[in-house]
């Protein structure tokens, strides 16, 4: 039941932010919504209810490193799409591996 609630809440919040972002112009402004805290908003409430505020605060602290890795990911993707004639979906998907490496690397270092 907990997993179903998590899936439904996550799906709803993420689609809401994605819908708002897709309707905004110019596209660079819409991109702000690509880095909206949608997953965090969906997850933190459920985590606080289930595991308490201290647990959720530790997650939030780690999220700062995840956001730093996202910034580098977005910079990499932006540069590749502007400069190279690479297809969008494979480029953005393969670069997720870089995000995982960066995020875990930062977590180990800090």
């Amino acid at each position: 039941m907990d997993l179903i609630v998590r899936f439904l809440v996550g799906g709803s919040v993420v689609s809401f932010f994605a819908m708002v972002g897709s309707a905004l112009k110019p596209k660079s402004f819409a991109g702000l919504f690509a880095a909206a805290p949608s997953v965090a908003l969906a997850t933190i409430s459920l985590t606080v209810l289930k595991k308490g505020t201290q647990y959720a605060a530790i997650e939030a602290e780690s999220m700062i490193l995840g956001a730093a890795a996202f910034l580098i990911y977005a910079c990499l993707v932006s540069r590749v799409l502007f400069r190279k004639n690479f297809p969008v979906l494979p480029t953005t998907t393969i670069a997720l591996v870089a995000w995982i490496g960066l995020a875990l690397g930062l977590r180990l270092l800090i």
Partner: protein
Amino acid sequence: MLVKFEFGSVRDTQWNEYATRFVFGGVVTLVAGLIADRFGPAIGGLFLAFPALFPASASLIQKHQREKKQRAGLDGAKRGRLAAGLDAAGAMIGCIGLAAFAATTWKMLPRHPLWLTLTIATLVWAGLAVSAWFARKRACSNLNLH
């Protein structure tokens, strides 16, 4: 260029595109919770900023821009790729707000109610991301960059 909200884009988006975003969002939220359960909150928290929805969103932006150009009799492939690149450039600025959201939540959550923490953290995200976008826009205009 002023910031605009185009209701037409909401209407033009097909139901399967909304369904894709819903499923992606649901799966990412679910997986972030499962990773936290398995590896602890220090690792699980990283995935609260996982850009999992980004590939789907960027490819939808590319598709819409390409179709728009093709309706006007143009190829549209390059325009679609550049639009996705612009989305990524905007996301870079959004990440500053995302980190501020996380820091606000981290500091406030142990001492304040959840609703207040998330409200202020969301306002911090929006305020910082929008201010940074306008500041960059102004700086680019002053330097004649685009």
